[in-house]
């Protein structure tokens, strides 16, 4: 099926069965506050600051505050939201969408084509939106021929446009608010067209939203939502158990058992889209030797880690992409073979007399059980004769240590997991494995290990230009197999995203991209 027809069909279906918001609007307890204990904090609510700082806290709040042109559901399928119809041209060089009528922002100003155009231009502008560039760079111009129609023009064929529009950074902000509060003021005074509007905001601590009467999908059932930051996992879980909050995210696997044994709580686990791994610094000798990289992967018992450390809430991967990413293809199976690993290392010239020494970087609290997994991997590598020195870096400084000029890279192995928050496998592969324009400078996106394979680049470029899903998937499959066998990463587990809520709360969605969505939650 051609992509264009697919999207148009969805658009039609979507209009008729817009996610049961209206249905839910009639049920539930009115006038109560839904309290959400988040693991990361909401610091800024401006979509043009890309990562909303401290992922995913800000995105989750934005999901309630803002509407986007298109939306994901819990299975990462794309549906219309503010746009009633969406159609991409056959040559993938433009797209036309029709907005619903009567859309309003929280401040009463109309959400029409002009407003959408102003937003998209803002996102296109490198100055005003410095992050998530791969999502917005291909857009070259926006036209709004009438109040309900928007035409997006692209500079190259861009099949991923719907994923960009559904991405969190595609949130549509009220231009009137931008004029009133200023470009930077929007971050603290967000005005969108979503089901909830801002009541109060203490960045880093608490955000309170209240239901928006004028929402096109009907006023939401929950009157207020309170986002509260509880960084410590154990305290977060306690808060849920004592009833201080109604929903929590990022439940550590160790505590799932205690939550499950509590009859008043429900645990929601969905397979994630973020495969974990250690990026290998290919610019450091001798890591450019394929045998060594293969030896590294043979030495790590990923299945045991997934089973034991994560209590079964994780799986060993079979591809650089997670299982439910669009375009996933089983590229190979992980093998745990210490003997073969030692043999390969010996072949490459390393032994107990001349051991391979590696520097491993890990953050703390950024990824699930990051320090514990790092210690296990270091120990596993020690079993085959590799000496590993662990350096633990606090959250904020970690990204900086990773994304350096080639000359400043101090790590051989760095823990990393990428979340394609637009669910696109193509986006994931391009972000991590497409060759950097200049390996000596900082990486374009997240190709921190300086991986470079022209065949992969060609496949990615081709897939970008293909509108046909089956064709695209075939190209991506080839790319995945090449990357898998090149071993640019020490592949680790794919975690499930686990949130928990009180049983009486309905409609909490845990998206594979680590988001817990409360748009449709009711008490």
């Amino acid at each position, binding site marked *: 099926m051609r992509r264009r027809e697919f999207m148009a069909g969805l658009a039609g279906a979507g209009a008729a069965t817009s996610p049961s918001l209206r249905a839910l609007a009639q049920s539930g307890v009115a006038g109560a506050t839904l309290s959400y204990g988040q693991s990361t904090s909401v610091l*800024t609510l401006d979509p043009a600051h890309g990562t909303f700082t401290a992922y995913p806290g800000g995105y989750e709040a934005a999901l309630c505050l803002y509407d986007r042109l298109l939306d994901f559901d819990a299975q990462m399928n794309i549906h219309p939201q503010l746009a009633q119809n969406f159609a991409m041209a056959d040559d993938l060089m433009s797209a036309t969408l029709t907005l619903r009528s009567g859309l309003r922002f929280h401040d009463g100003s109309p959400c029409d084509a002009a407003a959408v155009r102003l937003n998209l231009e803002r996102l296109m502008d490198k100055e005003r939106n410095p992050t998530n560039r791969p999502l917005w760079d291909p857009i070259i111009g926006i036209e709004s021929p009438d109040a309900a129609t928007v035409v997006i023009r692209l500079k190259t064929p861009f099949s991923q446009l719907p994923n960009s529009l559904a991405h969190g950074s595609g949130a549509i902000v009220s231009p009137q608010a931008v004029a009133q509060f200023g470009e930077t003021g929007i971050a603290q005074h967000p005005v969108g067209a979503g089901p909830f509007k801002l009541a109060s905001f203490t960045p*880093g601590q608490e955000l309170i939203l209240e239901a928006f009467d004028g929402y096109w999908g009907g006023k939401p059932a929950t009157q207020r939502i309170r986002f509260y930051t*509880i960084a410590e996992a154990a*305290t977060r879980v*306690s*808060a849920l158990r004592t009833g201080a909050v109604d929903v929590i995210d990022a439940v550590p696997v160790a505590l799932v058992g205690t939550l499950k044994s509590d009859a008043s709580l429900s645990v929601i686990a969905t397979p994630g889209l973020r495969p974990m791994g250690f990026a290998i610094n290919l610019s450091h000798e001798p890591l450019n030797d394929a045998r060594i990289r293969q030896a590294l992967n043979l030495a790590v018992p990923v299945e045991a880690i997934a089973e034991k450390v994560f209590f079964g809430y994780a799986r060993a991967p079979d591809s650089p992409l997670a299982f439910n990413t669009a375009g996933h293809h089983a590229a190979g199976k992980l093998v745990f073979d210490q003997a073969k690993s030692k043999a390969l290392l010996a072949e490459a010239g390393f032994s107990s007399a001349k051991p391979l020494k590696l520097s491993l970087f890990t953050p703390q609290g950024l990824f699930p059980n990051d320090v514990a997994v790092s210690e296990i991997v270091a120990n596993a590598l020690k079993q085959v004769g590799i000496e590993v020195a662990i350096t633990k870096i606090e959250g904020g400084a970690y990204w*900086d240590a990773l*994304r350096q000029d080639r000359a400043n890279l101090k790590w051989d192995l760095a823990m990393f997991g990428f979340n394609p928050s637009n669910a696109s496998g193509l986006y994931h592969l391009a972000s991590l494995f497409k060759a950097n324009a200049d390996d000596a400078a900082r990486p374009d996106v997240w190709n921190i290990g300086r991986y470079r394979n022209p065949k992969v680049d060609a496949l990615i470029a081709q897939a970008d230009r293909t509108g046909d899903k089956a064709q695209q998937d075939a190209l991506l499959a080839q790319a995945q197999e090449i990357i898998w066998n090149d071993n640019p990463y020490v592949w680790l587990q794919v975690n499930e995203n686990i949130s928990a809520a009180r049983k009486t709360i309905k409609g909490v969605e845990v998206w594979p991209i680590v988001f817990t969505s409360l748009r449709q939650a009711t008490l």
Partner: protein
Amino acid sequence: MARYLASRLLVMPPILLGVVTILFLIFKMVPGDQALLAAGATATQAEIETIRHQLGLDRPLLAQYGAHLLGLLHGDFGYSTMFRGNPLPHILERVPATLTLAASAILVTIVIGIPAGILAASRQNRLADLLVSGSVTAFLSVPNFWLGMLLIAILSVGLRWLPSFGFDGLHSLVMPTLALAARLVAIIARLTRGLVIEEMRKPYVRTALAKGLTMHRVLWRHVLPNAMIPIITALGLEAGYLLGGAVVVERLFAWPGIGDLLLGGIGVRDYTLILAITVLFALGFLLLNLAVDLVCLAVNPRLRNG
């Protein structure tokens, strides 16, 4: 009294200036590019240079110092990467939580520590004394974060009596206060015990008892007032522990105070925020000591000649 207060208050700005200067110099020694940290991991070189200029990092050290001081006069602590601007309003929002915790710790210390010390002194070397002295020794050695964790394990997880996080009403104050105050209670109890014992040896006590006054009256009417000054002074000496310990306790109990914020700032290498909060802690220390001295003056007018 007023003149004393004024002279003490006048001395504070120079002290704070000194503290700011020392910290400013310390933070200038940070390895790495501060503009890079402020701009974020995804910034281009041009953006980093823009931020460098915005933050004044391309100017000579003295100019930066001057600009920083000038900003402080307006309450502007500089550019915090976490809050993307002056962190002061956000910090001030969290001060009440820390003040509440500190105040309740002091209250608990006085309410439990002093009577415990008196009890131990009046029953010297008997069971009560041994229990109190034993507890004192224990609480002086126990790290407050461990004590907090044990309290959580027993009172929150085990018995479900108390909430283990956040500032959510009076009962959420109980465990953080206990964890923080334990050491102070021990110090004050031990001090009180020693002072009371010493006082009781003095001739006037024997005279009073011989005259027929009850031990109870002697203790509370005569012995204790003489012991107040050293006790309050000891509290002042422990102001450093109180504020420092608050940082750990706040992190453990997710208590939304400035200590927790300080640790958050460390996590993202936000030196402006770290400097601002550290200066505030110094100010808190000075104010606590001032309060202690004023109370001592009020309690014992004889000291006013000083």
